């Protein structure tokens, strides 16, 4: 991926700390943060407040990537899932610290801070969240 530094840096609060936002009109929580609430639209303007997700959720579907993008080639095969966070938003992320045969729908997971990819061209390393099986729930 042609990630550039400014583009990545802008998303550090979300990708490092899982900060989404909440609509002050209907109280729905979003991750990544949205500029406006798609349910309330104009009623949500100026009312979208930062919201810290706790980082726990449940796998609702997953796949095992066997043919990966260039910057992920050395990681294959790796599991990646859509996780429904306890607060409501759904997020895509890799599952780590778990044999990929053991990943299943319904599994409880929590976020963990990891290296995501290395840009082979610039050498820049990008960090962000992945998910691991929940230790204590």
């Amino acid at each position, binding site marked *: 991926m042609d990630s550039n530094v400014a583009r990545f840096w802008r998303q550090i609060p979300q990708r490092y700390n899982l900060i989404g936002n909440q609509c002050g009109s209907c109280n729905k929580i979003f991750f990544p943060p949205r500029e406006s609430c798609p349910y309330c639209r104009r009623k949500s303007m100026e009312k979208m407040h930062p919201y810290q997700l706790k980082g726990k959720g449940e796998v609702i*579907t997953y796949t095992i990537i066997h043919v990966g993008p260039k910057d992920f080639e050395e990681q294959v095969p790796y599991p990646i899932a859509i996780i429904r966070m306890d607060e409501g938003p759904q997020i895509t992320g890799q599952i780590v610290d778990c044999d990929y045969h053991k990943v299943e729908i319904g599994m409880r997971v929590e976020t963990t801070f990891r290296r995501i990819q290395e840009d082979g061209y610039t050498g820049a390393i990008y960090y962000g969240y992945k998910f691991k099986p929940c230790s204590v729930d």
Partner: protein
Amino acid sequence: MRDVAVIGVGLTKFGELWDKSFRQLISEAGAKAILDSGIEGKDIDAMYVGSMSSGRFVGQEHIGALVADTSGFSFMHIPATRVEGACASGGLAFREGYFSIASGMNDIVVVGGIEKMNDVGGSSATETLATAADQEWEAFFGVTFPGLYAMIALRHMHEYGTTKEQLAQVAVKNHKNGALNPYAQYQKEITIEQAMNSTMVAYPLGLMDCSPVTDGAASVVLCAAEKARQYCQKPIKIIGSGQGSDTLALHSRRDICTLDATVHAANMAYKQAKINPKDIDLAEVHDCFTIAEICAIEDLGFVKKGEGGKAVENKITTLDGTMPVNTSGGLKSKGHPVGATGVAQIVEIVTQLRGEAGRRQVKDARIGLTHNVGGSGATCVVHLLEAV
């Protein structure tokens, strides 16, 4: 609003066309459509061309003007516009052409679709296709395009008991149809074992669940229906057109297994045409992956949600079934030059409704549907055509 008809169609061979350039492909498809229609260059009021990513695939943007130029119309200064909606670019270009005649602004429009994907390497092509996904919240974390559809497939299996074998049956059926299509990339049947045991790409999808990387172009000529008979013996009328959008990222959708953009587009088209799914004789649907065909026949209302896998197993969608789907071979076997696909679907339906589909002709076909999807379902466009 005026009625509009398709009066000409043209297609290049689909495949790895090393000896053909972007310019040659689109000129060839356009010339075939124009010759088929009986119009002349001076009759053309406007051109629309669909391409997902000519900029990344061949390093050339600004292809509206390029297509008019390379087709020999540069000194006629015909308005020429490119339309983009990822893999739905062709279907969207067709819809824009339709609007421009229905509105009364134009009488005759040429619509094209093209993608020249093999000039870059396979991994580069895959990366370009992935730009149709959410770059910041999907692709950044390492999910690929097949990976997104694999997640739809696994959830579909979990909720409805859809099987890997049913997915494989989609591929087998589409290759069987493609074997009868001289324009198809793969004119070869495959066995259920080959489809079940192909190299894993993104579990549970193997190579035989995925459409290939393809070069190709398609074109059609549209005309105000009241003037169509001046040029053409068998005009095919557009009776419905619908389009829908959804979240760019799969994870934010209402339901992982339903393409709500398809449901929305289909309902819009059915309402305009005043028909329901039962009235349709055949359909070309967007089977970029086998699971996508199963979701499509559900979301278009041919079968209930969750019953797509069973419908395939019961052979409802085969050439001689009650609802033939992807008689051309679909994206899987005919090939998927992304920007061309939506227009090529129209070419197949028009060919069928004219009764000119040869060995893959659906008997007494009167109403046909096309379904073209961008990304993992963020854009969808549906058209209904009728022989008049």
